[in-house]
Structure formats: C-alpha cells, structure tokens
C-alpha cells in the first residue's frame, strides 16, 4: 500500500504538457468571458447615462436620461426593504424545507391516506399560480374570518409553494440512498426511525443541499410578489411606492433591480463555495 512519490521533480512528460496547454486554454476562455461581461456592463451603464452626442445640430446618439437626484434621495428608503426581503425569504425557505421533507416522506409512505395527502398537496400547489396563492392567503381568507398579516400570508404562500416543488428534490435525495444502506442499518439492529435519522436523511440532505440553495436564490426574487398585498415593505413594495408617487418608476425599478441582482450575485457566490465543498465530500 506504499505509494511512490517523487516530489520536487516536475516531470515534463507529454501528458503534463497537454494538461498545461488545456489549463491555459481554460484560463484564456475565462478571462475573455470576464472582459466581455465588463463590456456589456459598460454598455448598459452608457445606455442610462443621459448622453446627447451631436455632430453640429444633429443628435446622432441619445441615451436614456435618469434622474440621479431622485435616486440619491430615495436609495436609503428602497434599501431599507432588503431586510424584509431577506426575512421573508429565510422564513419561507425554512417553512418550505419542512413542508418538502414532510411531503417527500409522505410520498414514500405505505399508508394510503398519508401518500394521498402528500400527492394531493403537491398537485394542488403546482396546479395553481404562486400569485394566486399569495392573494388567497391575504384576500380570500379574511372573507372566512381569518385575517393574516401581510408577512404571514406571504411566508405561508411562498413556503407552501416552494415546499411542493422542493419535495421532488427531497424525494430524489431520499431515493439516491441505496437499498444496501438501509439493509446495513437494519442488520445492525437499527429501528426504521434510527435508520432514517442516522443513515438515510444525512445522505439525502447532502444530495439536496445544492438544489435547495438554488431555490433559496429564486425565493429572494419571488418574494417580490408579496409586495402585491401592499402590506409588506420589502424591496419591490418600496420601489413601486416611491416610483409611482413621484413618477420616477424608471429610476426606482432600476435601483430595485440592482439590489436584487447584487443580492443574487452574492448568494450565488456562496452557493458555488458550498457546492464545491460538498462535491469534495465522501461518496
């Protein structure tokens, strides 16, 4: 079992040269993509820079003029919605994970009512628009005497909705754990509960974490739908409010877009890190 290592000597074999060439190629590709991103970004900024390029009296290029004064004045107000956006997203994803886990386990149940409940829930949620679901909790329930605050109805609707979709991910995760794993646990004398908690779930969750990260990133943006109820003062609500009242929707929505986009970029970065760490894992 001793392995031969020759540290220090860099072998310049044919394979090594080919490998180096391939690495160089990948590096060049990445650099070019980065530069192109930069160019596209500059073009976008230019489009909104309010330029008026003339030759003599003729305007040849005119770009969109935005009201920077309005933006500076309202940026803190809109940014103040970030906290709410994140709060709704975090609460909803936690609720969604719980629902997804229950639905996925229900789907594996041999007990017909539980199996039916799980498939019924997933079908109902996937068969109706998220927008409708949010309004259902906020507008339809009060008719029955159930009045929920904007944030509670938002979290319920987003959580139930994402839970239904995520249950599929969880189910795939659970079935990714081979039969042999359960048998080994059973042979050791573990109860079905112990087998699930100690052996199956940890492996299934590891499988499900990267897609869950993606769902969370989507959630931060779908949380904007909650603004429609008018009672949750998150990013989107704030942007539409100041935009409409001062007839500066262009500027307000651009600011909101920048916030969402930045948030997504940051979350995607961490998601990538997480995924890299998990893929190094032990399988």
């Amino acid at each position, binding site marked *: 079992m001793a392995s031969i290592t020759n540290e220090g000597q860099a072998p310049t074999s044919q394979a090594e040269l080919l490998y180096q060439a391939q690495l160089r190629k990948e590096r060049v590709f990445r650099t070019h993509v980065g530069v192109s991103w930069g160019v596209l970004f500059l073009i976008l900024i230019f489009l909104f820079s309010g330029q008026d390029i003339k030759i003599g009296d003729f305007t040849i290029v005119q770009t969109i003029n935005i009201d920077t004064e309005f933006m500076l004045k309202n940026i803190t107000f809109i940014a103040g919605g970030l906290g709410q956006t994140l709060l709704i997203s975090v609460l909803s994803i936690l609720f969604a994970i719980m629902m997804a886990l229950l639905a996925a386990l229900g789907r594996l149940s041999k007990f017909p009512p539980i199996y039916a409940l799980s498939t019924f829930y997933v079908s109902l949620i996937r068969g109706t628009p998220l927008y409708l679901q949010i309004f259902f909790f906020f507008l339809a329930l009060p008719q029955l005497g159930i009045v929920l605050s904007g944030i509670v109805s938002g979290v319920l609707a987003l959580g139930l909705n994402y839970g239904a979709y995520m249950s599929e991910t969880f189910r795939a995760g659970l079935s990714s754990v*081979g039969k*042999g*794993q359960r*048998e*080994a*646990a*059973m*042979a*050791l*004398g*573990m*109860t079905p509960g*112990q087998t699930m908690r*100690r*052996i199956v779930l*940890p*492996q299934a969750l*590891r499988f499900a974490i990267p897609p869950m990260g993606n769902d969370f990133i989507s959630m931060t943006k779908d949380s904007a739908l909650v603004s429609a109820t008018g009672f949750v003062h998150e990013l989107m609500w704030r942007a539409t409010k100041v935009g409409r009242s001062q007839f500066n929707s262009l500027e307000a929505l651009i600011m909101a877009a920048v916030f969402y986009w930045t948030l997504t970029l940051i979350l995607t970065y961490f998601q990538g890190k997480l995924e890299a760490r998990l893929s190094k*894992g*032990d*399988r």
Partner: protein
Amino acid sequence: MPSSPIVKISNLDKYFGRLHVLKNVSLEVPERQVVCLIGRSGSGKSTLLRCINFLEEPSRGSIEVDGVHVDAEGKGKQQRQLIHDVRLKTGMVFQEFNLFPHMSVLDNVIEGPVTVKGMDRRQAIELAEQNLDSVGMFFKKDEYPMRLSGGQKQRVAIARALTMEPRVMLFDEPTSALDPELIGEVLNVMKKVALEGMTMIVVTHEMGFAREVADRVVVMADGELIEDATPENLFKDPKDARTKALIDRYRSGEG
C-alpha cells in the same frame, strides 16, 4: 458435532411473488461451526442467508438464533421485537460492503453499538479500535470509505459487524465485488475470525476458502439443500450430479 445448534432453520419457505425460491429448507448450525453455502446463482443461497436476520421475510417456517425463536408468520409488535433480538445476535457482511459514506471508518464501526445498544461512546471507540486493529484497518480509522479500496472497505465492514459482538456472523458473497488481487486479504480476515471461534455462515463462490476453512459445506440448488458434508468428503466424493458439476467448474477454473 459439538453442543446444541445456535442457528436452527426449520421448514423455511420463501416466495418472491409466484416464484418459490426456498422450498422447505431446514438447517442446524452448532456453535463455533463455519458453514459455507455454495450453489449456482439463483439457487436461493443468498435468500436463505438473508432470511436468518429477516432482511428477507420468510413466507413459512421458523428461525431460531441463540434461543430466540421467530415464526415466519408472527405479526405485530412482538414479532418486531423478536426480529430485533435476532439482529442483535447476528452480524452481517454484504457483497457491496454497504459502509455509510457520510461517516468516517471509526464512526461506521461505533454507529451500531452507540445508536442501537446505547453503549458509552468511549467504550465503543475502545472496542471499535480493537476490532479495526484485528482486521488491519486501524491506520485508516479517520478516513472516509470513499478513500478505501474494496478489500479495505470489506475489512472495515467485518469490523463493524464484529463490534456489535454478535453470536453468529453472516457473510453474503463477501468477495464477489472485489478485484481478484484484493480477495486474499478479506479471506484472511475471515479465516482469523473463524479461528477465534465465531460461528459463521458464508455464502461464497470461493471453493478454496470452503475447502480450507469450512467445517461443513452445504450445497443448494433450486431452493433446496441438495448436499451437506465436510469439505473433504464433498470435494472427494460429491453425491449429487449438480454438486459434481459445480466442483468440476471450479476445478477447471482453477486451471
């Protein structure tokens, strides 16, 4: 033959759907005996082994391990308790190792004692380390299974089963998934376990192992026990034509 049987299989039947895979099988194994179960694939030998700890539920008949008697047709909570008791008395080693990939080697080995028996963690580690040492895997105790060779995985799996301190060890084709050069290390560990006095039932294609280590070889075909003899007698003078064919095939494979 020494003492009373520690494993007693009585009139066992097993159906997979309409397929009758075990036909009224009875087998007694005395304590400290090493029994090899051989037969062509599909003969029912793995199914019989898996019925002993109820990974397969037999359709009729009964299993008794170290005084725990389980009737195939029992039901409910009491039945589950009996099956649990049998599983505590049996250790199993699988063809595909089935180590837990999310746990280190040491955690794999202490998982049973800690979770199932509620053993103190320190005590479990001590026991696990002894067993890892005896299968020659102590030096990999902090590795994850992914980083081990097949032979190493199987040795860890044997240590995992032994750490539950079973009365009987069941081996289900423990070397069939291994590269040929790794089979020896696993067979050597199994031989060592046998020499320490463990009762073993081994489903295997390794005739060399059967010949050298087994006290007794049981041949199965079409869901029935067709021959039951000491290795010398079986290899010298097989009674059944199907046994003869099996042994001839092994001899020709040996070259």
